[in-house]
């Protein structure tokens, strides 16, 4: 697809050498975005500084710097605080889900993810306004241990229960 200066850039960070080329192929076919890649959190930070992407898709388990650390690094810097971030990982337990959401991601997807689902997640993350994200992150920071506000402003416990229900159904 034709790229222009206004074309959003999506940074994909994953250490899997089979999945990363697929994500590039798939996103370049199904979305108009410019795709840049990195293979771990450290490379991801370098790529972020270079390309200033409008959205980041990041894996959780990676060498050097893992996904949660990468997300915390972005969320801890006021200049990158509002970046839409999607975590896409093989770690599907409720605890992993909680760790991912607590790090400050907008969406937490468990692999395998359908191509359409990923595309929709990117669109939703891009559509989330800065004020909505800021509000949610502030709730996350201010909430006591067990009542962390997460995605959709829900409480962490509710989020974990929902994740557990999801596991049960599978």
């Amino acid at each position, binding site marked *: 697809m034709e790229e222009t200066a206004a074309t959003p850039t999506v940074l994909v960070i994953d250490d899997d050498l089979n999945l990363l080329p697929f994500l590039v*192929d*798939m996103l370049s*076919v199904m979305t108009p975005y410019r795709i840049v890649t990195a293979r771990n959190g450290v490379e991801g930070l370098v790529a972020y500084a270079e390309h200033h992407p409008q959205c980041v898709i990041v894996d959780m*388990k990676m060498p050097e710097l893992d996904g949660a650390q990468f997300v915390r690094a972005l969320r801890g810097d006021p200049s990158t605080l509002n970046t839409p971030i999607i975590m896409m990982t093989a770690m599907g337990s409720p605890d992993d889900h909680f760790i991912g959401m607590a790090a400050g991601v907008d969406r937490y997807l468990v*692999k395998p993810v*359908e191509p359409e689902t990923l595309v929709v997640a990117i669109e939703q993350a891009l559509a989330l306004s800065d004020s909505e994200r800021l509000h949610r992150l502030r709730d996350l920071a201010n909430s006591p241990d067990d009542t962390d506000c997460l995605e959709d402003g829900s409480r962490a416990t509710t989020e974990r229960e929902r994740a557990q229900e999801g596991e049960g159904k599978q």
Partner: protein
Amino acid sequence: MTSPTVSPTFSLSESEQQVYRSYDNIWRLRLVSVIAPFFGLTTFMSLVGLLAFLVVSAHGATTEVSVALPPQMAYLSMGSLVVVISLYGYSTYAARKGQARRATTACATALLIATTVAATTWEFSQGVGPFGLAGYIFLPLVIVLVGLLATAPFILLATLWVNALTITYTLLAPREAGIAGIVQREAILIVFFCVLMEWCFAILLIALRRALSATLRELGDVRIAYERAKQLDEIKDQFIRSVNHELRNPVMALNGYVKVLRSQQTALSPERQRAFLDRASQVGDRVVAMLKSILDTGRLEQNASEFTPEAVNVRTVIAESAELLDPLEGSFVQRELHLSIPDDLMFWGDRIRLQQIMTNLLSNAVKYSPAGSPVTVEAYPIRPAEAPKSSALFGRSRQLNRPQMVEITVRDQGEGIPPDQIPLLFQRFMRLPRDIASPVIGNGLGLFICRQLAEAMGGSIWVESQGIAGKGSTFHLRLPMPPTQN
């Protein structure tokens, strides 16, 4: 539903043998921890009493007790009682340290000495009288106590000792005037009945010990079966974790390519479609290879020992194994492979099995070390370990029967393995935590398979590593040499 059973085809590990020993030891240790301090205290009080008696006697005072104890015998008894108290003390200490054999042996020995000292002192100082004869009934109690603590040979020894005491007292000890005639007349009968009673107790105790051992063994079986089931459960969890991470990515890519090709067929050029299909095919191959290696493991366990051993050239097999390495694993970067193997070095086993082991070890060395760093393979014959000096005579004969071995080492310059994680390496589906998070592909089966194959050929495999980056790991494989080369 099948119940967990201990498979007779698996040999017991050291920790499993420990389970049987611990069941046998626990109750003996508990018994000693009660008996030894109690009897130690009783003996101490006897010692104090004896000392008081000597002090009183030395001052010429008369006592109400009609005991005539020569001072030499009293001093001998006191010396013996000190030894007995020390043994009870040591027994209590050993029981607290969990040293069952030492604790029970010391306690049983103390019991025997204490009984011997007390009975001998009494019978030879006071003479065999009604009270002394009644004491014969208590002698078998020693056999009961020793029988509860010690092993069958010790019970037999204790019984023989008590027999000897009974015979000695009856025949040699002075007799009280009132019953001297009866003892003289019935000496044989007294000895016969006492010895018979003592052996009855001994046999009863040995039978009880055997029954108890059988029950404890069954308890041990149940415990081992439980531990194995628990271990299996852990392996299953580990397998799920490992497969979960290793399969989700390629399955997502494979499924994704199919979905994209189907939904975007019209938008994709034929070249792009072909490229997508090629990549999907590569990912599919990875999934198939992984599933195949997992499914092969079960078959491998059954077939590992089904081969006809023959003399095989080590260098040739290792060179072939290096040829079989997948270039993808080394990221197509050339590696130096240093081989230091005598041309004529042979091992006794199966060519294909060594090839499988070496391919695995070389593949690991390449995958887990920096691109371009060398890998060194050495092989040399080794002599069997020297027998300990204490059993030099038997050690020599064993050494003659033990086959000479070939040791093959594979050394890399990678990150190494943290020493605390080394025991995990050769277990099924076990991947180190850092590897699960790394891009290195694996299913946690390679080294498990190597161990199975090495052991099936009568060899062993282990690793040495300090877990220091750059110093790497050294895998050692030991295999028997052909009989003619021994």
